[in-house]
């Protein structure tokens, strides 16, 4: 797969069809993969592909990275789950489909955290999203690398995140409150979850608006709660469950739970799953007169 990938990258760069290839490369000690930005066809051999390629590179297509945008038309090495994020960015008008060349990678799963890698991909080191993945054969691409995957996800999504969401749902309101206050109390307001999220691309985040100060800046439980609730609210109907926020969290706040819960709510209420069709609008920017609810009196 790596060979095909490098050949394609070289061809794209040499023909001038793209100006930069965003992909994965090794770090210096070859223990992790790190994003690489290749502009010279001679450098394509730095591109790699393996289960350590967990990063969601679609982040680098957003307007947060103006210096990458300035390089010219990009090609991006993307797994199916990353392509879902690219699709959301397209539906939100961040760029057009033809503005990016998507090199889709067929994928057999990644590791949850790169430190867990022992040289072999086993189900217990894969995140919940990989066990339920329906985009192992990338769905929106210009070029596909790799053999077609025959994996079919289970009918009912299973895995740790779904179990924990169910468990929390069955608890009482005060138990849920205690759980989240305890989890959020560790938050240090580093905003890594925001920085790594391909869908948090506001040039001026609500946390930076201080007239009035919408989100309290110090890392105490009240400000932490309002930050984490706001972050989750801003991702309703958009989040694709790529899991980068939780992976990047230095204090391991289970953000996947809250994201997955909201994905479930959107699925139930609006019958919508984000990141599959670049022509459908995200649910929170449209409406239907027939929306059903039972709590507005």
């Amino acid at each position: 797969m790596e060979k095909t990938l490098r050949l394609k990258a070289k061809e794209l760069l040499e023909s001038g069809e793209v100006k930069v290839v965003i992909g994965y490369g090794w770090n210096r000690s070859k223990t992790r993969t790190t994003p690489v930005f290749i502009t010279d066809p001679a450098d394509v051999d730095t591109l790699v592909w393996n289960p350590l390629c967990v990063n969601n590179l679609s982040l680098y297509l957003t307007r947060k990275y103006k210096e990458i945008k300035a390089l010219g038309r990009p090609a991006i090495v993307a797994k199916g789950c990353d392509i879902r994020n690219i699709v959301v960015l397209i539906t939100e008008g961040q760029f057009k489909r033809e503005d990016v060349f998507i090199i889709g990678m067929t994928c057999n799963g990644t590791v949850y955290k790169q430190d867990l890698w022992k040289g072999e991909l086993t189900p217990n080191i894969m995140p919940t999203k990989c066990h339920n993945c329906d985009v192992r054969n990338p769905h929106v691409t210009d070029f596909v690398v790799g053999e077609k995957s025959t994996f079919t996800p289970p009918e009912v999504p299973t895995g740790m995140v779904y179990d924990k969401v169910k468990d929390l749902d069955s608890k009482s309101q005060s138990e849920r409150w205690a759980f989240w206050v305890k989890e959020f109390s560790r938050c240090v307001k580093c905003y890594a979850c925001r920085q790594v999220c391909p869908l948090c691309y506001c040039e001026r985040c609500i946390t930076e608006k201080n007239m009035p100060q919408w989100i309290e800046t110090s890392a105490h439980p009240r400000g932490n709660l309002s930050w984490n609730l706001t972050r989750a609210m801003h991702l309703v109907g958009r989040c694709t469950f790529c899991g980068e926020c939780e992976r990047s969290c230095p204090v391991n706040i289970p953000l996947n739970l809250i994201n997955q819960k909201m994905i479930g709510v959107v699925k139930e209420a609006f019958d919508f799953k984000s990141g599959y069709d670049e022509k459908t609008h995200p649910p929170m920017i449209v409406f239907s007169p027939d929306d059903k609810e039972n709590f507005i009196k």
Partner: protein
Amino acid sequence: MSGHTEHSAPTGGYEPKIMAFVCNWCTYAGADLAGTSRMEYRPNVRIIKLPCTGRIDPLFIIKAFENGADGVLVSGCHPGDCHYTTGNYHARRRWIGFKHLMEFAGIDMRRLHFSWVSASEAIKWVDLINKVTDEIKALGPFMEYKGLKATEAEQG
């Protein structure tokens, strides 16, 4: 909340503070009708008028709780009646998400109410405020949320 309102509350026991975010065209007019019709209702509600329910950012509600509200009420035009044609439909979508999020985070949903009150429904408004106020009065102050700041002081 200013100190003024704090002291002007009746001294005979606990009185909840309730914030109402209402739209200019329906619920505010409904509340106004209740006033001009000289209907009496519980004085615990502080009304904030906004152009439309579509203008109500969920962060307003979080902010209200942060600043000491014991309950929040959000109200606007009935579906189909929006002055701006579609504002309340957008708001409804947002609330569906927000309500489930707040529920999942463990906020007591008896403290957060959503309703449609039209300009002619003064009686509905009065009943709603009375019901919500009594319910929240029975629950007591929202100590879980107010306590968040205190927790930090102890740790710090």
